[in-house]
């Protein structure tokens, strides 16, 4: 019988553990779900976005919240794993009953969470993911403020001549993001009459890229496009310098944190170009200079790493978008928020946010058209290239 008792108590414990937390659901603040990779391989970026989201929350609450209620962020870790992203979405929607979610960083995580949005009818503001398929799948609950690689490449098109790109190689992280960027930028280059050389990939966790750099060095391209997280860019730049690779280097994706590169790669970063979506060095040059300035100041005041700003702004914009939709909807109801998202028109840190229809007719997802900026590292400082100044 003792065996039975022990087994029974285990079952009861699990049951209680599952049920009790749900019993204390509070009514007061309006909840917004946030799904980010807070641990695992891409934890750094996910944490910056969390910090940005928290600033937006505090500002909004400081202004009296939304609909007369405070905003509460329910932050979930997707551990850089799609299964966890789906589970987190399920939890946020079903248990916490959030009317809107901001997330889920990587494209595979967003794609894994998307069936849940459709299943329960809850909208999600996608803040980072770049895969084209996210808005092309016909999921009418998806609203993306980050640019898919195609859009980013289009944004670069106008600078291609000034950059003087004739033939370019690609070095990208072997993920949906890196693969997508290589395709998109390659298409734009071909369209504008430049040649596309090598496309080399590296694993997300790889630390030694010498072999890829050797291959690039053996080619005759004039430009190297790099798409990966800032840590890996640092390593690539350092190793490229060790190998004396002389190429014009352009990083894509907007998260390359040039000031971090200056610190960690030093002279190896000199002369490189970076596509960014937020320029914390020149807040006044941003579409809403005052907002940008305030955000940068607040970020520094909180002691967050300055280098995280190029990512953190997305958390702010994501939450701001969600709150704006809540305000328009007038009630924290997922369906109303979804309808309201179509009407959102606001100025974020990146620039204007307004959703256009994308994807199969009748089931369109929302896609905002983000602003795209280009900076260069010059004399150990970040500079706007002459041709990119407004």
């Amino acid at each position: 019988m003792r065996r039975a008792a022990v087994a029974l108590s285990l079952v009861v414990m699990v049951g209680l553990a599952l049920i009790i937390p749900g019993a204390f659901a509070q009514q007061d603040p309006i909840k917004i779900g946030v799904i980010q990779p807070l641990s695992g391989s891409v934890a750094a970026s996910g944490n910056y976005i969390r910090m940005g989201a928290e600033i937006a929350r505090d500002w909004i609450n400081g202004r009296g919240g939304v609909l007369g209620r405070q905003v509460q962020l329910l932050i979930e870790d997707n551990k850089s794993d799609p299964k966890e992203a789906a589970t987190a979405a399920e939890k946020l929607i079903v248990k916490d009953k959030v009317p809107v979610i901001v997330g889920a960083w990587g494209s595979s995580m967003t794609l894994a969470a998307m069936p849940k949005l459709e299943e329960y009818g809850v909208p999600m503001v996608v803040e980072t993911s770049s895969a084209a398929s996210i808005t092309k799948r016909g999921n009418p609950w998806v609203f993306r403020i980050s640019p898919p690689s195609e859009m980013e490449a289009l944004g670069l098109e106008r600078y291609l001549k000034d950059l003087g790109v004739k033939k370019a190689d690609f070095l990208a992280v072997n993920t949906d993001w890196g693969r997508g960027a290589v395709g998109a930028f390659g298409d734009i280059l071909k369209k504008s009459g430049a040649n596309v050389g090598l496309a080399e990939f590296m694993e997300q966790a790889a630390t030694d890229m010498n072999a890829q750099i050797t291959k690039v060095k053996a080619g005759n391209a004039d430009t190297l496009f790099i798409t990966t997280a800032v840590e890996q860019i640092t390593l690539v730049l350092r190793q490229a310098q060790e190998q004396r690779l002389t190429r014009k280097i352009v990083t894509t994706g907007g998260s390359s944190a040039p000031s971090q590169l200056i610190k960690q790669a030093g002279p190896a970063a000199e002369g490189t170009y970076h596509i960014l979506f937020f320029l914390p060095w020149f807040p006044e040059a941003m579409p809403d200079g005052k907002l940008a300035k305030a955000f940068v100041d607040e970020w520094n005041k909180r002691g967050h790493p300055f280098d995280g700003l190029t990512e953190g702004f997305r958390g702010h914009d994501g939450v701001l978008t969600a709150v704006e939709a809540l305000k328009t909807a007038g009630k924290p109801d997922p369906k109303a928020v979804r309808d309201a998202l179509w009407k959102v028109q606001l100025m974020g840190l990146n620039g204007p946010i307004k959703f256009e229809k994308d994807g199969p007719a009748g089931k369109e997802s929302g896609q905002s058209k983000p602003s795209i900026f280009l900076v260069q590292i010059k004399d150990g400082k970040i500079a706007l290239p002459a041709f990119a100044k407004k």
Partner: protein
Amino acid sequence: MLGATYSLLGIGLTLVFGLMNVVNFAHGEFYTLGAYATFAALVLGSVNFFLAIPIAIVVGAAAGALCDRVLLRPLRGASIDTVMLVMIGVWIAMQNAELLGWGGVAKNIPTPLPTQPLTAGPVSVAPLRLFVFVVSGLLILGAHLVLAKTKLGRAMRATFQDRETAALMGVSIDRIHTITFAFGAGLAAAAGALLGPVFLLYPSMGDLASLKAFSVVILGGLGNFAGAALGGLVLGIAEELGAGYISSGYRDAVGFIIIVVVLLLRPAGLFARAERVG
């Protein structure tokens, strides 16, 4: 270049397995610990870079000794899977503790060495990499000398050969196990301290290190010191060649494929002498 640090990682792992029959999944975490300890000593404690490395080794070894004393000693005699799973738990806990303590943002260890590469004819080498290679080589040599020449080393080898007989000869098995584990952890920490400045520091950096260490160990034969040292070099070279000639995406596959082939052709490891049967 990296081969030498792979060897350091592999030697630690192989010793722990050979002597203690523990599959140490937390091995990479001692590597991470070594890297962060260097960072802490250097940046927070403003200690000289060359002093920070031995500090990191000591910290790693101390953590290893603690881990053995607290977790492994009471579990001696438990099945190998149980112990392995405990180490998996340690791995998860340590990695997340690092995440908690240091944050997920990558850190950089500044070095006093010049970044301009040294050139000798067609070969160019970064001074830092040369430094890493030389120090790793010295550490491997040192570890070998400890094992081959000292009384402690003899006791360790005796334990490896035959635990009961060693115990009869008055060797304290518990003590030897603690020392072995600390030794392995210290070597892993040394690898972390050395590679930290080459790469960047982040909490999950140990995962890749563990993977490499396992590849090295299997290449060299489980429990085989010389095999691990050679295995590290072979893996380092094979990866370079593999990435150069095959698609770079399959770079890490090279390690796996070597493991499979070696296992099938020479299950005792590439450098094991044929065992006498009977």
